[in-house]
């Protein structure tokens, strides 16, 4: 029934592709540990110089970059979550006029990338003298995250058995208290998934920071890394250390919450 050869083939495929995914990542970690300053070979496990990370952190200013990224990411996650939940609740549980049209509007947002709106966003913020502020980094990303968040929470609320909401209604619960006391406790996994995904996308966002921020104190991690590369094109080790620092927070989050990441990407996508 289950062919031994096919089994081996499957494992081989999985193994090979897993390796291909891992090698560059392992490589950059190894490179980060190489001796700094010289023209190193990428990925060669030669030397153990964890001091590179300290150098990147202080001289490379990555401590400031991470802090900036954290502020922006936390703000975006908080705002998006607080706004998406009621919106998703309205779409998922209430009937009102224009529901379809408004929902399609949000759906549209899923397909409008920042690349298309970055130009007017910049000029608008510039006219308001708000470039080089956290607001310039936070607000557009909240907007984009809301498209996903609303859609995601709506999908969750639609999956709740109607009878639960009806029981609450008969028990005398208002829409608001039903949302917060009855539904949200069960929504925890869905909300965590949403928060984790939005955190990742916000942390990894580059173009917005590139355009909006010129003040070094506001630079987010990916932006900081791009500048760092400009200053250290040949010092692979140091550059690699910086790159690892930038990627680590999200990777750590991923390792601990991988179920949420993967489930989020999978089921959020299977909306059809």
């Amino acid at each position, binding site marked *: 029934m289950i062919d031994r050869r096919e*089994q081996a083939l499957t494992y081989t*495929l999985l193994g090979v592709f897993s390796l291909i995914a891992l090698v*560059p990542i392992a490589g950059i970690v190894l490179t980060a540990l190489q001796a700094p300053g010289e023209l190193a070979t990428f990925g060669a496990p030669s030397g153990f110089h964890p001091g590179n990370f300290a150098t990147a952190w202080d001289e490379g200013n990555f401590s400031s970059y991470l802090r900036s990224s954290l502020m922006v990411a936390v703000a975006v996650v908080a705002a998006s979550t607080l706004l998406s939940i009621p919106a998703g609740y309205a779409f998922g549980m209430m009937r009102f006029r224009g529901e379809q049209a408004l929902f399609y509007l949000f759906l549209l947002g899923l397909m409008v990338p920042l*690349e*298309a709106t970055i130009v007017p966003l910049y*000029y608008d913020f510039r006219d308001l003298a708000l470039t080089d502020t956290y607001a310039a980094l936070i607000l557009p990303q909240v907007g984009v995250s809301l498209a996903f968040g609303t859609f995601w929470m709506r999908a969750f609320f639609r999956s709740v058995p109607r009878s639960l909401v009806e029981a609450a209604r008969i028990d005398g619960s208002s829409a608001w208290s039903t949302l917060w006391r009855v539904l949200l406790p069960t929504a925890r996994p869905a909300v965590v998934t949403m928060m984790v995904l939005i955190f990742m996308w916000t942390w990894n966002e580059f173009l917005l920071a590139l355009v909006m921020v010129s003040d070094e104190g506001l630079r987010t991690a990916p932006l900081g890394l791009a500048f760092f590369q400009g200053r250290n094109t040949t010092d692979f080790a140091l550059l690699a250390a910086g790159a690892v620092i930038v990627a680590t927070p*999200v990777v750590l989050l991923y390792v601990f919450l991988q179920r949420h990441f993967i489930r989020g990407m999978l089921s959020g996508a299977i909306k059809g």
Partner: protein
Amino acid sequence: MSRALAPPGEPRRVAYLYLLPALVVFALFVLAPLAHSMWLSLFEWDGVTPGTWVGLDNYGQVVSDPELRAAFRHSLVLVGFYAVLPVVIGLVLAAAMSRARVRGLALFRTVLFLPQVIALVVVGVMWRMIYAPDGGLLNEGLGAVGVGGQDWLGSFPLALPSVGLIGAWVMYGLAMVLLLAGVQKIPQSLYDAARVDGAGPVREFFTVTLPGLRNEVAVALTLTTIQALRSFDIVYVTTGGGPGDSTSVPAYEVYDRAFRGGDVGTASAIGVYIVALIFVLVFLINRVAEREAAR
């Protein structure tokens, strides 16, 4: 006939209140800028001095300007690398998986998905070092087996495919995980029936696996295609659009022309084209998927 459409006490108008904050922020920072983009695309503007009305000229320019045509051509090539290649890889794996049972699938999934969570800037930095002519992993490895190395990101014919392969690396894990999840949902009974009918593995793939994965393939293609058309971070960090123009992409042109070239109108038009292209491709992908479903 009672006029009440909804059961009594069911929130109706209050729904708008729940929706309002999200709608306002979304409209202000996504919809309004999109409209504004379309507005800006009708002008020739350098961002400082007053602009001049040019109507649809900028859109025409995108078609007539060979640089911009090249950029869009490149993005379609990237779609091949970012979307088609990963999905094909995913399908190969799904086909193999359908006949086998794998233990430790969760671990494989975690590893395969890892490239997706890494910031694209980091990915770019990473691969730039891998592709480096001196000391890069690729050339060192090729040297070890006696094959000559190349300037992957610096030579005209190789740069775009090299960038494409980076994208493939980022995306194939997503495609794989998606398709693997899909293939596990296909009822074993369909395979049993096909086997009883005498179908071999190739036949099984085309009659059971592929149709069963229709939705997942559509989703995978949609997600990866959007990424391909957006591609900015990787290009900026690895090649900056070069050498020459060989890795220019629409998103990079938007940035370059608006903020370095003082040509905001054209940049906006390119942005609008990107959105339109995404819409069209997503629509087509899902249309084909639906048509196949109806068959």
